[in-house]
């Protein structure tokens, strides 16, 4: 692999992976804050308003880091991937520009109002500002997913005389069948992060016997949100998986670790793919299940990697395989934890069940890992294509930016993001230590 290309890929992978740690909480928490504000508005229970205020503080810190790490993403399309941008900018520039115009203006206008103006707004107007912030963040998510979906499964375009890619149908771009499952799946993943973070903080307060009344609200709202979202996450993941089977069958084979075409293909739970011997080592297989989940038919044929020439394979099969399995495995665990905790909640015993509270508290990092693994599955699965079936990743990088310059800026970003990450954890931990009662009127 050309070394400049490898650096450009790592550059984008590093900055986008770090960035997405923040928007996933923004999008999930925005909805949960709306839930808290709605309960407060309907019941007049001021405790829910204070709970919303507490989460708004954490939301604000998280949002700020999401904004400053998000700007480099838009820039990098031009700086590091100029061939791709020159060819496809007329199409994906549409959704990226719409994100700025439709969601960033909305979000940035109302987040200031939501965070600083509770005292000068009526309860209804403050509730409305929280709804607008939530809508802005979810619109932003849509335009980004639509952009990625076009790279995964290009629609609504035509090729111009010079080989440039032209937009041919705006609605073809927006109503891309790939975009909608992926969008729902991504938003639900964000809710799972938000809900588990809220439940983990609640469990932390209950275990340490502080702010217990708030701890109970956080655990209750978090567990209910986590249960609903993780169940829907599985359903949308199924829809997305069938899109992959339809449009990227080689990606399906690679993520499942299926080297040989089989009728009644088994589902690999664990195992290590070996691309030299073309087999899965130490496999734990469930017979016929892969055929069923893919085609709703226990005996259906699923094509394995050996059906495709090697230059069509995703270029990092093991990492893709592990990302996919980590995502699905953790998704299953999330359902199990949320279901047991919801059952205990229903029986009125969750707040005394120390073991379950510990599990909730320690589960905090895992939704982040699962969401990251999910995006790695999508983007590694798209390889070796930058635009699936149309432009290879190797053809999209900036020809004039050398490896030396790209390594320089990659190191710069690593340094900056390390500092930003430490500051973020420090500030959020301080807010958690202060708790929801700080500064109460």
């Amino acid at each position, binding site marked *: 692999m050309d070394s400049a290309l490898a650096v450009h890929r790592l550059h984008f992978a590093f900055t986008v992976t770090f960035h997405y740690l923040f928007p996933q909480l923004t999008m999930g928490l925005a909805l949960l804050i709306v839930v808290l504000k709605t309960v407060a508005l309907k019941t007049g229970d001021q405790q829910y308003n204070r709970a919303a205020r507490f989460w708004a503080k954490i939301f604000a810190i998280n949002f700020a880091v999401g904004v*400053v790490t998000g700007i480099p993403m838009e820039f990098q399309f031009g700086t590091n991937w100029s061939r791709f941008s020159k060819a496809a*900018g007329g199409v994906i520039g549409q959704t990226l520009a719409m994100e700025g115009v439709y969601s960033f203006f909305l979000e940035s206008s109302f987040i200031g*109002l939501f965070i600083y103006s509770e005292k000068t707004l009526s309860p209804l107007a403050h509730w409305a500002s929280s709804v607008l912030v939530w809508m802005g963040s979810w619109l932003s998510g849509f335009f980004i997913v639509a952009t990625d979906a076009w790279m995964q499964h290009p629609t609504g375009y035509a090729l111009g005389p010079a080989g440039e890619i032209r937009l041919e149908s705006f609605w073809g771009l927006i109503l891309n069948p790939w975009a909608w499952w992926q969008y729902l799946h991504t938003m639900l993943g964000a809710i799972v992060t938000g809900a588990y973070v809220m439940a983990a903080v609640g469990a932390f307060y209950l275990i340490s016997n502080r702010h217990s009344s708030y701890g109970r609200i956080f655990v209750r709202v978090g567990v209910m949100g986590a249960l609903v979202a993780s169940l829907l996450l599985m359903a949308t993941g199924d829809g997305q998986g069938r899109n992959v089977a339809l449009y990227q069958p080689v990606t399906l084979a690679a993520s499942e670790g299926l080297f040989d075409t089989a009728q009644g293909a088994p589902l690999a739970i664990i195992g290590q793919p070996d691309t030299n011997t073309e087999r899965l080592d130490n496999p734990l297989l469930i017979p016929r299940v892969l055929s069923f989940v893919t085609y709703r038919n226990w005996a259906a044929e699923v094509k394995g990697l050996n059906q495709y020439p090697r230059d069509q394979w995703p270029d990092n099969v093991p990492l893709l395989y592990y990302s996919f399995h980590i995502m699905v495995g953790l998704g299953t665990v999330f359902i199990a934890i949320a279901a047991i905790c919801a059952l205990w909640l229903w029986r009125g015993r969750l707040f005394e069940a120390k073991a379950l509270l510990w599990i909730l508290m320690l589960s905090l990092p895992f939704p982040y890992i699962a969401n990251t693994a999910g995006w790695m599955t999508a983007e590694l699965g798209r390889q070796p294509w930058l635009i699936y079936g149309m432009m290879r990743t190797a053809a999209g990088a900036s020809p004039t930016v050398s490896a030396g310059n790209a390594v320089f800026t990659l190191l710069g970003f690593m340094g900056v993001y390390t500092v930003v990450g430490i500051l973020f954890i420090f500030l959020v931990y301080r807010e958690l230590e202060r708790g929801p009662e700080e500064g109460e009127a």
Partner: protein
Amino acid sequence: MLPFIWFCLVALMIAGYVILDGFDLGAGAIHLFVTRSAAERKLVLRSIGAVWDGNEVWLLAAGGTLYFAFPPLYASSFSGFYLPLMMVLWLLILRGVSIEFRNHIDSPIWTPLWDAGFGISSALLAIFFGAALGNVIRGVPLDQAGEFFLPLWTDFTPGPRPGVLDWYTILIGVLAFLALAMHGALWLNYKTEGDLNARARSVARTLWWPLGLVMLAATAASFSVQPRILSNFREYPWGVVFPLLAVGGFAGMRWSKGELQAFLWSCVFLAGMLTSAVFGVFPYVLPSNTSPTLGLTIYSAATAEYGLKAGLAWWIPGMTLAACYSVFVYRKFAGKVRDQA
């Protein structure tokens, strides 16, 4: 026609960015000099606190619009100006973090650290943006494929092998710094009371002379570095309205009576300066410094017609909505900022 419309819309959005984010950049660039206490620095932050993020969105929205309407321009300029753009990103991160993190902890270590971060990043961004404009006016060494890569500097002259920084682009950077510092001073003068208000006014009065001198020098230098400017003004004499706007704004900010009026004249000044530069190189959006035929024009860089039409269909309602939010927020946070602590 459509490429021209989009050229105007992108120019409008960039002007919106320069005018709106310009005052919070300028306020940041001078805030270490106009304030005498941590409380005053907090007031400066409060004067921009609810709007700076929205102002920065103009940069993102303008960038996105440029991206879809003129993809080759976006691709070529962003990869060609790779190093300075990455530094702009780091400065934007430092600035955003400084503004948002500063008020979380009240301590003699934490607060001055972020005050310095806010001041340094704001000042450097103003200089970088000016130097970027200078690079576009001077032109870049585009090759046959419409690509280039500029080192940060070579021999500091705008010759055939220029760097991002040469005496001309540095001059434009200094001009941008002074213009935005003035803009920020007039904003603070408008938004604050008492000593801070008086100091901001005196900074604005002091900056007026150097700003005028550097503006004259930069204008003369621009005519010599980019001959196209002169030929454009000869060919389309009506274009003289743009520099007249700038001159009017420059006079207005000195002699107008009200604080708000002075700030608004500064907006006119910035709009006039920017449109003069854009008019001067039209129809090029990225001229070549070696051969005119290699430069990117609005026609050679525009995407196909359908995309430009589809863009109008969402851009007009979208920006109308955005303007409504902005008006709402600026009205909500109107008036002088006061120390509430």
